């Protein structure tokens, strides 16, 4: 069986799944809108949590929050189910598909057969939509892919029960009926989303938000002396991968946030939104330049202390731009 589900490519998997599922139920929201309303722009550095032997950095909130917040602001009832039994997980999925409901699934990337091998790490917070079954193959809409694809029963069970951090436990989620959403509600969602991200990006505390960026800047400055060029290169490489790897839309989600602000203007005609959008574009460009600087360090082309200092200064500039922008967001009267 096949549900009449439209696949739209997205930069980030969770936005894409949320936006595509909403669209199926008649709520037309673009990817940046879903991202912004979900308060998707974020920063956190995790010096103690080592991923591939380098400290972790994230530019997005916890997996699942974007969908959750959207559903909350629009009063959409949804189901989120996890399973202990693989058989039950598959049966329930088949049942929902037979009812004609596309279903969002959280999966691990490592065993995902259609992904290029180079990208298959043990990352468990990827999101896809199952929208049909033909024989023993499921029809899958993976938002980061250009077109829809298929996956076998065995492979799907395997990725749904991947282990490790954020283990999906066969998690599936789907909205019930979506009522008509008034313009007012969308405006309200935009305000709440803006408030949310602005709050988290300016909280006191060393590793979250703008202060987190400053903290990383300080660390980068000391990398050469503390770690040596090789290890420092690994740390910076990891940072760049988290910032630019597939699923960010570039610039550590900053471009996505800028696009959200620009599109919000269609719902709330307030000039300030556009000027904020420009500020985040600038921040995104800052992140990309920072990535280029880092790459010249980890390629071994420029590894003097002055280069590390320059990279650190770039981060400080980004932190300043973002701090101004988020403080302005907080004061915004919409």
């Amino acid at each position, binding site marked *: 069986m096949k549900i009449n589900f439209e696949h739209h490519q997205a930069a980030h998997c969770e936005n894409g799944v949320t936006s595509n599922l909403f669209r199926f139920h008649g709520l037309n929201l673009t990817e940046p809108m879903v991202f912004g309303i979900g308060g998707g722009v974020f920063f956190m550095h995790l010096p103690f949590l080592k991923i591939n032997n380098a400290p972790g950095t994230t530019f997005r909130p916890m997996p699942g929050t974007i969908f959750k917040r959207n559903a909350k602001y629009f009063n959409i009832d949804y189901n989120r189910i996890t399973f202990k039994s693989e058989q039950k997980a598959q049966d329930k999925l088949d049942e929902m598909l037979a009812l004609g409901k596309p279903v969002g699934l959280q999966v691990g990337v490592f065993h995902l057969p259609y992904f290029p091998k180079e990208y298959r790490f043990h990352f468990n917070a990827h999101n896809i939509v199952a929208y049909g079954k033909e024989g023993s193959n499921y029809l899958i809409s993976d938002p980061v892919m250009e077109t829809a694809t298929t996956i076998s029963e065995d492979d799907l069970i395997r990725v749904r029960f991947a282990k490790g951090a954020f283990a999906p436990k066969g998690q599936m989620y789907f909205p019930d009926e979506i009522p008509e959403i008034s313009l007012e509600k969308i405006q309200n969602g935009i305000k709440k989303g803006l408030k949310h991200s602005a709050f988290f990006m300016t909280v006191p505390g060393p590793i979250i938000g703008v202060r987190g960026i400053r903290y990383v800047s300080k660390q980068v400055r000391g990398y050469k002396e503390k770690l040596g060029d090789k290890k420092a290169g690994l740390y910076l490489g*990891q940072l760049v991968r988290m910032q630019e790897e597939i699923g960010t839309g570039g610039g550590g989600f900053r471009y996505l946030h800028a696009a959200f602000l620009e599109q919000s203007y269609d719902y709330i005609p307030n000039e300030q939104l556009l000027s904020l959008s420009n500020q985040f574009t600038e921040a995104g460009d800052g992140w990309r330049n920072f990535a280029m600087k880092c790459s010249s360090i980890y390629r071994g082309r420029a590894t003097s202390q002055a280069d590390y200092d320059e990279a650190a200064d770039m981060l400080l500039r980004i932190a300043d731009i973002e701090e101004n922008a988020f403080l302005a967001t907080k004061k915004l009267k919409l």
Partner: protein
Amino acid sequence: MKKNEIPQDDGALANHFRELCYAKDENGHYTTGLSTGWEVKNVALDQAWDEIHNRIQETAVLIKQGKKTPLAYFMEVSLMDSKLLSQYVGKFHFVVKRHLNKPSSFSNLSDLELKKYARIFDVSLEDLKFFKLA
């Protein structure tokens, strides 16, 4: 970033799919474009894989010295650590660590238990039992 500045450097994604990027069109409005990859990212990714290959090589040396077991080799090939492996195989962490680090307890494993490991690593039972370094 302008739309015509979206990088098109072929990388690991080539022949699979292109990724979506957000950038500004000539009128200064946000639009989307497709990218085949970016050199800066490609190098970072290559570097991460070099590191993994190094670890695999180091493990191979340790196996020859009798300080690790073949399981440790396949664990590195599967990009796992001992904790993740213990979750996949459903055994206590310390038990798995013993299987990884003590050749004597590895050789005591039954075929049934080895099969469990083999399935996780996507290799055959023989690969584990008659392990030969390439």
